[in-house]
């Protein structure tokens, strides 16, 4: 069993840590040894959040070397760009398209990269790049907060783990009254990535 390494990137408060927790647990349920590493603390106040998740037969280091990440799951385009130095030419990227400009852009003088720049950088760094407008899908479902579950649904279609295992882990973390909503969000995610592959 070869190690599989994932980079999960997002902005503090976006549910990035919950998503990487779920990803790690799915690996465990699928029979892998699993490790993951987060940076917490003040970073959670709107800073960049990067999580490393690894599945394998026996995983030693919780932190992955640059150039060793097989997958990038990004909740925000700018954070996806920050993550490309971890990728290798065969990496697969799934990126939410909704931009969240940092205060250095909104209140300061720095410039947020254009959508074309984002596409160019990600495509030159990885083998396959999928974009999903998870925030729009979440809004359509009536709750912005499920954007990360939409992303996870989409991401699940890129991996060889039964959908049942994914749903089991995702839903076990959701309070009873939100189960249906999150199940919907997960299904939506599963279908959007198929659409983005076709186009």
């Amino acid at each position, binding site marked *: 069993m070869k190690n599989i390494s994932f980079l999960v990137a997002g902005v503090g408060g976006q549910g990035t840590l919950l998503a990487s927790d779920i990803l790690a647990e799915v690996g465990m349920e699928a029979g892998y040894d699993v490790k993951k590493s987060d940076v917490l603390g003040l970073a959670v106040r709107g800073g960049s959040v990067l999580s490393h998740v690894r599945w394998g037969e026996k*995983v030693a280091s919780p932190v992955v070397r640059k150039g060793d990440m097989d997958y990038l799951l990004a909740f925000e385009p700018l954070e996806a760009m920050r993550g490309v130095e971890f990728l290798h030419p065969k990496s697969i990227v799934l990126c939410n398209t909704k931009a969240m400009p940092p205060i250095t852009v909104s209140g300061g003088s720095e410039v947020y990269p254009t959508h074309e720049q984002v596409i160019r950088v990600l495509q030159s760094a990885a083998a396959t790049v999928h974009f999903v407008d998870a925030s729009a899908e979440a809004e359509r479902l009536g709750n912005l907060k499920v954007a990360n579950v939409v992303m996870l649904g989409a991401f699940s279609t890129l991996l060889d783990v039964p959908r049942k295992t994914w749903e089991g882990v995702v839903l076990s973390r959701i309070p009873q009254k939100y189960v249906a909503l999150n199940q919907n969000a997960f299904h939506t995610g599963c279908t959007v990535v198929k659409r983005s592959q076709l186009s």
Partner: protein
Amino acid sequence: MNKVLLSGNEAIARGAYEAGVQIATGYPGTPSSEILATIAKKYKDEIYAEWSTNEKVAMDVAAGAAYSGRRTMVTAKQVGMNVLSDALLYTVYTGIEAGLVVITADDPGMFSSQNEQDNRWYAKLAKIPLLEPADSQEAKDFVVLGIGLSEEFDTPVLIRTTMRVSHSKSIVLEGERPSVPQEVGPFVRNQEKYVCTAMWAKKRHPVVEQRLVNLARYAEDAPFNHVEWAEHSLGIIASGVTYMYAREVFPQASFLKLGMTFPLPEELIRSFADGVEKLIVIEELDPFLEEQIRAMGINVIGKEIFPPYDELLPDTLTQLGLESGLIDEAKGMTHSVTVPTELPARTPVLCAGCPHRSTYYWLNKMKMPVAGDIGCYNLGCLPPFNAQHTMGCMGASVGVLHGMSIAGVPEHAVATIGDSTFFHSGMPALLNMVHNQSRGVVIIMDNGSTAMTGHQDNPGTDWTLQGKDAPHVEFEPLVRAMGVEKVLTVNAFDIGEVESGLNECLAYDGPSVLITEGLCAQLDRTPKPSYMVNPDKCIACGACLKLGCPAIVKADKVDEKTGNPKAEIDPGLCVGCDICRQVCPVEAIQISKDRETQGDR
């Protein structure tokens, strides 16, 4: 056996459960805070847990509990150990009646600390055993082991994690909790052991030294120190998570993995050294192992190659391994892509609706020197405020302010300190200002919790860690009782009140206290309407942008006369704190009719 995925901190909490710990104390601090939070949440019925007012108090409480026959754990972040150490050192002499472990969560890489210090030295200084777990399974197991060692050798035991151990998750096999007594007997009266007065303590010192000799003997065949033989050309000694990194970067090397890093197993190290051609030590921060091994007369390389600062992540180890010729080529490493464009930074900011914003807004405008302290409000040192000119350690601001005052700094100076930090160590410094008749304004920024580390309770909250009711200590009478005559309390969300309060205190010739009250935006759950900028009224003056609220952004629309961008409010981020409306000179900011914030972010 149950298989679960736990962070190092959650695993330590589980370890406390499986070790029969009954009392756990500490003071919050990254990366240690989740240990007690987990205990309070998951093992509430078995383990009493409290946030003490500071780490020294936590350690004294732990000593009292362990003297009384309860297995006990204390937690601190790396710099918290500095505060805790005074109390730790006497427990080394007294020993305990039931197991006592101290957890120090270090921070190589300085993710949330003011310095990078290696707390392994505390074990050597105090002469107590030191355990260093490398992952969550070990984190759990070492607590159980630590309690055992503590009772077997009658000593407190230090367990040291680092941020990567505390905050990484890995698989843990859960065990059972042993049966522990529900009641304790009468307190032991053993003065020669527990009263550290010189005449008795003097007799305890040789006991401490002999204990270390016994521990070193034990370390020789302790299960957690072991050799993994591979090629004999390179031998690596490592501990903690650094061992995990090194395993991956040097797969051919032989390893001596140390779980107990003080006292060291000299014979084991010697035989490992004899079995390899080249011996290196890989350790983050100080040459703690290296110096001791060299002192044994063993030839070893360490800090020559691996610097004494920052983390030694697999990337760094690979690079240093290549540079020093330890690896010929980065095996299995693919080249990494460089990010082509300069990306805008995403630094942490005070939340939308943060009660600290109004204070830093004025401190920036009034331009006086500000002695800062530890908490979210430390973000006041960054743009757009730039209104904090010193920051050192917990509680330092008040003492530094007094120092500035007696040094004769010509400007009126100010200290900013949070509610929990004030209780932690600001109080003695304020008493000092009163007693020595200082001048200066201490601003107590009371946001109703210990926000930065995760909203823990403190004496100013009316709940405890375990959710019990607690008396809410009021600042104004407290500070008055301490002898401060000029005390004002203002609403942090009223810009005018903060300004006039500050001015009144600044004019006072003596020590004064300004209490800015306002609940942390993360705790405030009352739904309030969100705000909007009326683009027809906005004159693009930038006043509201100077508040650094993440909800206020530059709009695409510009002012025709100046060409400056107008302001805009993101309705999804605004929590309706009203501050921006108050600073707008032309009343362009108003409550947005079509959207209410939910207050349930």
